[in-house]
């Protein structure tokens, strides 16, 4: 009885939505470039977008950057908030939609963090024979940027560390270092700073030992095949968030100042790293 009822309700709701909103939902993929595990925040953001776009919005989450990238490539997502390397490597299938502003700039850093008890480590060179945590192989701050730095120092991470692993999320890198599972880790500076606001007890167990140069902030991209009007609508919505109260409240929760349209020049540093480390 109950499954039947539920199915019936679903059909009614679905037909109602398609009639009233008169279109398919906009699907937005998220990755752990921000704290995408806050379901209530995503719900609020979704309602905010639906009100302004007049269309249903669906957030789609996956376990790694790669899965989200694949979904965009297959046109199964309209937008995605990804890291710069996937965008740079998939520009044939993606266009830049917007870039977040953190502390007023569309820039961020990669942090090398160590357990708070470690008072001596200043750089990767001090972590020989230790266990190291990366966030995602497709992340700039969580893999590419530290690899670039290590290469500068002639460090081969596969032999230099006793062991290294991926946690598939920046927040989990912080946790891994905080509990001592890893003696060092690479984390998105923006995520670490936001965590310090939301969970100071967690970041207090870690110490930032080194900060990378500034890089372009992980962007929000759209599939290349998206309708220009939809893209423009979304761009206006994101950029306009800082101009209304609801939008500002959401931005505050993200610890962001707003969004700007941005341009590829922001990601030159990341592009250089890609060439330097991966030869692309």
């Amino acid at each position, binding site marked *: 009885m109950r499954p039947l009822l539920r199915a019936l309700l679903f059909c009614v709701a679905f037909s109602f939505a398609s009639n009233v909103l008169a279109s398919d939902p906009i699907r937005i993929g998220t990755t752990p470039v921000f704290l995408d595990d806050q379901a209530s925040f995503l719900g609020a953001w979704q309602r905010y977008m639906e009100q302004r776009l007049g269309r249903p919005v669906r957030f789609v989450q996956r376990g790694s950057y790669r899965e989200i990238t694949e979904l965009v490539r297959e046109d199964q997502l309209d937008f995605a908030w990804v890291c710069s390397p996937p965008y740079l490597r998939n520009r044939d299938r993606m266009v830049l939609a917007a870039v977040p502003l953190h502390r007023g700039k569309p820039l961020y850093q990669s942090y090398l963090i160590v357990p708070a008890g470690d008072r001596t480590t200043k750089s990767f060179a001090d972590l020989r024979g230790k266990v190291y945590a990366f966030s995602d192989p497709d992340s700039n701050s969580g893999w590419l940027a530290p690899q670039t730095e290590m290469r500068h120092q002639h460090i081969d991470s596969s032999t230099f560390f006793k062991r290294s692993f991926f946690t598939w999320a920046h927040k989990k890198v912080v946790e*891994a270092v905080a*509990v001592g599972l890893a003696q060092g880790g690479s984390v998105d500076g923006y995520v670490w700073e936001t965590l310090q606001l939301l969970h100071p007890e967690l970041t207090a167990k870690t110490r930032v030992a080194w900060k990378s140069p500034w890089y372009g902030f992980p962007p929000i991209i759209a599939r290349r095949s998206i309708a220009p009007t939809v893209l423009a609508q979304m761009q206006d919505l994101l950029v306009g968030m800082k101009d209304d109260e609801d939008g500002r409240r959401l931005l505050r929760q993200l610890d962001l100042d707003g969004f700007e349209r941005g341009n590829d020049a922001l990601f030159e540093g990341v592009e250089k790293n890609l060439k330097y480390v991966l030869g692309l």
Partner: protein
Amino acid sequence: MLRDFKYHYKIPLSLTLVIAVTALVVSATLTLLAYQNAKRELISNALGLGKVLSRTLLPAMLHDEPWQAYEIVATPLEIRTERGAAERVIVVLDAKNQVYVSSSPMRFPMLERLGAVDPEFGVIEKRVAGQSNDEAFTAEESDWQYIHVVVPILAEDGARLGTLIVASSHSLFLPQFYAALGGVALSTLAVLVVLLPIGWYWGRRMAEPLEYLAESMAKVGREPIEELRRGLPRSGDEVGMLGKGFDRMLQELEEKKAMEKQMLASERLAAIGRLTAGISHEINNPLGGMLNAISTYKKHGSGDALTMKTLSLLERGLLQIRETVGALLVEARLESHALTAQDIEDARTLVTPEAQKKGAQLVWRNEIAEPLPLPSTQVRQILLNLLLNAVAATEHRGRLECSVSRVNGSLRMSIANDGRQISRERLDHLYEPFAAQGEAAVGGSGIGLWVTYQLVQQLNGRIDTDSRPGGTTFTVELPIDT
């Protein structure tokens, strides 16, 4: 030491001790059971957790995802982190038996050898390395901090990817154990609170008759036997048997004493009788001579008036001596006729005026119907003596009772007065002649009872005195020869 301990304490203490020891043994057993239960539950708990985790860990191990593996083993422990102490540690070993991940990465870092971290875990590592099958097992030693549950992590095809160790601190089941212990302690206490007073009371009740018996025995010779015989235990058990036996002994003792006293008294009276008889004869012989001499002189002598007066004086004195001696020497006198009811009534006639003088009431019961073969003179004298004594002893407007009857083969005469009780000292020498001297003598010359006693003795009878507050009764029994 223990043998000198009184039953007053020994029995209640023994009962108390038995109750306490029983309660202790029971609670110790319950405690042990509670401990084993708590431990068994902990182990089965750990085993269940280990089996679930080993399956959940499989993909993480297959895909070599240490963080995922860490999250899997850390999650079940997160609830308990507030307690602080490392009560439960979960360690995942890889196929080379190195630490893959653990719930306490600081203590068991990745790729570390367990033996290098903790010798206790080193033993587990060795057992895992030496394990020939892929069965889960439990390991614990008395001096270990943890109880270890070891579960293999097996791929679908049975290949061993690693090993999961769930180490549970003893302190984990202690709260449950303490709760059970508290319950046991509380119920033991309740049982003791209820049973100990009952045991003590019961013990005291058991000891009490024995104590009383012991105390009574200690008092023999110091307190009147009548007093001792009161309150002796008479139950059907051994103590009651002792009490009854002791009572019998006391009774016999009492009888023996009374008999001894009676024998002593009658021996004394017999001695006095012999003495008086001897003296009387010795006095009577010269007395007779002297009286004869005086009589002869008076008849034939030519004495002047003074001599005659002197002789007359001597004669009167000698006659009084003879009278007194004669009274002391109660001799079987002349033959008398058989006793009839009239003889008894004569005594009544004689004593009635005396009684009336004192305003005393005389209750008379004469049940003699036919003549009895008893010397009437002696019986009359006995009855009269006793009746006159009774009148003398009775209070003004008192009451006298006399009953004469034939009981079995005896004549029984019972004379009672309601006068003062005769003192114990006086009673001991009641029948002795002149015994009343120095004391408020109850009339007479002091030989009335002596004479009565002698008469009764001559008739082979017996005389008893029962004197108590409110009156005295003399009972005479004379056997009738048939």
